[in-house]
């Protein structure tokens, strides 16, 4: 009997793996859940695409400021030592390779690290890419946080993505509700699995072939 990780547990896995002193961007959706899980003693510098370096979660009862928002346009606050800057500088931080990590949501990741996370390819629906493509090419390490399967139980970890791509060969690691997997040499390598899950069961839930250490 296995229990899938909750969204909060998935976020905690990411928070635990990012070392003190890193600069990190958290994408919209599940990645912003990571923010509260860093310890107060850690100096993780969080970047937000809208021009914030040194973003933190609001404290309990702290008043929201309409000009201090995260990428999902939710209220956040600025750390001591934080800075504001304009959008061209903000994306220079990404594209210029200055961020250590970014954590993105995903629809699909392929075994060679391609990411699809911005469009379901539906006709008649306006595409909305935001900063996803810039983050995918820019950060030194791109991590993806997503459910292992769709609601219909189709694998999101594929031999090749079927949805419109966000970036090519950019993903280094995927955190799902079942496992953590690295993209190495064109394959998914399993780093950990939820307790009680067998390698056979994880492979059965995954389209792409898996390697186990």
């Amino acid at each position, binding site marked *: 009997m296995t229990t899938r990780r909750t969204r909060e547990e998935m976020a905690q896995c990411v928070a635990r793996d990012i070392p003190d002193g890193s600069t990190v961007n958290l994408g919209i959706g599940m990645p912003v859940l990571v923010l509260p899980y860093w310890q107060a003693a850690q100096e993780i510098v969080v970047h*937000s*695409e*809208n*021009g*914030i370096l040194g973003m933190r979660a609001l404290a309990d009862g702290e008043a929201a*400021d*309409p*000009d*201090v*928002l995260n990428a999902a*346009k939710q209220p956040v606050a*600025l750390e001591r030592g934080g800075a*504001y*800057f*304009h*959008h*061209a500088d*903000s*994306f220079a931080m*990404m*594209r210029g390779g200055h961020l250590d990590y970014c954590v993105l949501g995903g629809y699909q990741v392929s075994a060679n690290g391609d990411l699809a996370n911005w*469009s379901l390819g539906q006709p*008649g629906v*306006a*595409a*909305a*890419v*935001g*900063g*996803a*493509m*810039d983050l*995918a*090419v*820019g950060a030194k390490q791109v991590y993806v946080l997503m459910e292992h399967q769709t609601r219909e139980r189709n694998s999101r970890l594929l031999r090749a993505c079927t949805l*419109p*791509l*966000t*970036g*090519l060969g950019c993903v280094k690691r995927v955190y799902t509700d079942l496992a953590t997997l690295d993209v190495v040499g064109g394959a998914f390598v399993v780093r950990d699995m939820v307790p009680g899950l067998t390698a056979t069961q994880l492979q059965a839930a995954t389209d792409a072939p898996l390697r186990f250490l």
Partner: protein
Amino acid sequence: MTNKFVSSVEEAVADIFDGATVLVSGFGLAGQPIELLNALATQGARDLTVVCNNSGSGDEGLARLIRLGRVRRLIASFPRGAEAMAFEEAYARNALEFECVPQGTLAERLHAAGAGLGGFFTPTGYGTALAEGKETRVIDGRGYVFEAPLHGDFALVKAQAADRWGNLVYRKAGRNFGPPMCTAARTAIVQVAHAVPLGELDPEHIVTPSIFVQRVVVLEGASTTAREAA
């Protein structure tokens, strides 16, 4: 004597013409020049090309312009959202054209326009649907996409304070697209909460130098504050 203050939002937007390209600052509501956009809706210019990260929300500002059918073409990175009904309805009716641009490419196309560059090669979007039909090049083993500069006839920008020369400071992350948009527009029109006397802004802290700003309107107590500052 240089005095870029004008006395009202109506005066500020009076010469925006049909068919103009208008750059609009803001990331969601932060930094969105709602009052200038509402004045533009009242002024009535149509067939506009609007460049903005988002598409407005609710029934004010950019959302009002879209609902009134004034926007022929929207260039944005993320036009969707819980409050983006005006855009989604207009898009579903084919009432406006939409060009989706990655957010960093949008910022850099504005920067390129303001800096007099003929465009740039970016790795963003290489190999994706948003690069289809664009020139590509492999530089040091990595794929890049050519992106053209994006000029505006006008920019509508929200800042925090200005002096009569048009030097600007912004408020927190409300800065976002304001600085690059001021540089990229022939006429940058800025709404601010405060006018300050010339010389009061610390030269080390001025974010947008006055050369990039053509017109400023102060929203509260506009006429007296601006006169005092002048």
